[in-house]
């Protein structure tokens, strides 16, 4: 399978007059064609910042982005703006959380879709744009009647569907969804995730879903990456990571999540608080809250260890085990 995205040592730092906030440090992961990866993390984990950095949508004056992000043979983080603009939406598109604000309120939806379509097809006729849009709207189970409407005439769920249809206009290689279904109701979310899975088999699109909800990942992705306080702690196939979590944080997260069926279990919280992101941390970022922390965890950062079958984890416990 062809590799679509290969992120190496990505770091993002927010800078202002008084301090630096290390929002993402040294994150590495990769996505193959047809993969769907869920990046999970709690607030402050840096998951959205990472996505925005890959899309180069962070304010340039206030952020420093380091590392590499190989995408179809180019480095997303280092190509020129013009080169990047050629990739945007054609090969790489994004859906944000707030469906209600994803469209300009004073322009018709169809007008906005056409504008976005024409970015890469400047000579397209109105009919062509409309045709492609109708095709994508059908894919997300929407009547093409929405084409003539204004955003306020649609519900949040419908708008989010339109947004997904728009993101697929050029059948991109990679789609990033940043909490795109979080604000929706259970039924609407379930249906959109179902439609996405169906569609991916038709369009050969790879997908990254960024969410705080592991159940969204488990039901719609084949890979998962777990982030905590700016660090990517564990990644791998959903079936493997959720069944045999290697990192204590992943284990903790899973223990805090109630299962839908079967035996009721006792839920457990992870004690402690997020570390200060404005400080550099010598050891493992999770050490202060880790129930299995050792002396070493406080002084040295763990390396990314390959457990085979694309399962990676950054934890001293694993390193010890392997030796």
């Amino acid at each position, binding site marked *: 399978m062809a590799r679509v995205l290969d992120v190496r040592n990505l770091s993002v730092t927010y800078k202002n007059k008084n301090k630096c906030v290390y929002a993402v440090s040294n994150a590495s992961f990769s996505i193959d064609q047809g993969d769907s990866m869920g990046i999970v993390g*709690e607030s402050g984990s840096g998951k959205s910042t990472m996505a925005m950095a890959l899309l180069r949508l962070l304010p340039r004056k206030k952020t420093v982005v380091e590392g590499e992000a190989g995408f179809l043979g180019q480095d997303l983080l280092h190509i020129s703006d013009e080169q990047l603009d050629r990739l945007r939406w054609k090969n790489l598109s994004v859906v944000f959380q707030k469906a209600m604000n994803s469209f300009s309120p004073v322009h018709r939806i169809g007008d906005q879709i056409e504008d976005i379509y024409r970015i890469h097809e400047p000579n397209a006729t109105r009919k062509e744009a409309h045709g492609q849009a109708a095709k994508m709207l059908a894919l997300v189970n929407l009547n093409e009647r929405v084409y003539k409407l204004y955003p306020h005439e649609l*519900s949040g769920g419908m708008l989010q569907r339109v947004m997904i249809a728009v993101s697929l206009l050029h059948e991109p290689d990679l789609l990033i969804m940043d909490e795109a279904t979080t604000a929706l109701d259970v039924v609407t979310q379930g*249906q959109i995730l179902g439609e996405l899975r169906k569609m991916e088999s038709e369009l050969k699109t790879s997908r990254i879903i960024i969410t705080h909800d592991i*159940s969204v990942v488990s039901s719609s992705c084949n890979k998962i990456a777990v982030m905590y306080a700016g660090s990517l702690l564990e990644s791998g196939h959903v079936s493997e990571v959720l069944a045999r979590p290697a990192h204590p944080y992943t284990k903790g997260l899973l223990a805090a999540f109630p299962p839908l069926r079967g035996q009721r279990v006792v839920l457990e*919280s992870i004690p402690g608080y997020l570390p200060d992101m404005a400080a550099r941390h010598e050891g493992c970022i999770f050490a202060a809250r880790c129930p299995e922390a050792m002396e070493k965890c406080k002084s040295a950062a763990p390396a990314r260890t390959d457990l085979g079958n694309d399962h990676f984890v950054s934890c001293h416990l694993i390193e010890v085990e392997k030796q």
Partner: protein
Amino acid sequence: MSGNYIEIKDISKFYPVKGSGTLLGGKGSRKLVKAVNGVSVGMAQGEVLGVIGESGCGKSTLARLLTRLETPTAGDVFIGGVSTGKMLEQDAKKFYRTVQIVFQNPYDAFTPRDTIEQLLSRPLKNHGICPDRASRHERCAELLESGNLRPAEDILKRYPHELSGGQLQRIAILRAMSLDPAVIVADEPVSMLDVSVRADIINMLLEQSASKKVTVVFISHDIALTRHVADNIAVMYLGRIVEYGAAQTIIESPLHPYTKALISNCASIDIADRVEPIRIDGEPPTPIDPGPGCFFADRCPVAEEICFREYPETAARAGNHRVACHKA
């Protein structure tokens, strides 16, 4: 069902639709939003009742009705056989001591100008629970200790913005508990908090209510979590309870087509547990003058002619399971 400690009887809340009628109060044709539309359900003392449903189903209005933040258009709630409507007229403070609420957003639950001690003491003082300052201080410290908020003396001096969401929500629960209520309504109490701290809040709520035999109405859109905490679950759709029963039964063998769709669409973290979601078409309509048939009829995959004609009676099934559907 008359053996229930708490009995919600046929409670309703209708609002006039904005912009219908005229400024001068036009006659007749005012449309009504029937946010809660004849809800009846009972709870035993110490029971946890889960209420689930999508946004707009009326579950939050129900919470506000139970705590009398809204006045019901019709119906009443009885606690230990006493009408809360009457209780409010006779001794309003007693009512507020009896029924307490925990809100969704802990960051906004306290006025930003007071310290935690001031915030916790105020209800103790208003309700005459601790008459003098020293006893209130002691009680506040005890409360924090009982909720694992340590060091209590230090936290008492803090302002709300200096604490984390999880700490604030625990304080909100403790404040509600400090009045010794019979019922606590928890309206999405953890949905704004991170997963890793949710468990503590839930466990604390359950422990505190169990030790004092407090009945809990747990309102949530998170179905897995509701199953985890609730003894019984009521499923709401457009202002009505469409299905009610033991938590396990509702999740594992639902009868109403809406409940079935809802649960099949609910993602699980267990990958072995992938269920094909049941499609229901359309968006949930608004509860403006619904009926006369079953409110779910136009989205229902199994609806028949009768479903559009009359609203189904609520029928009893095995155990305490009840469902309002012509086809179930």
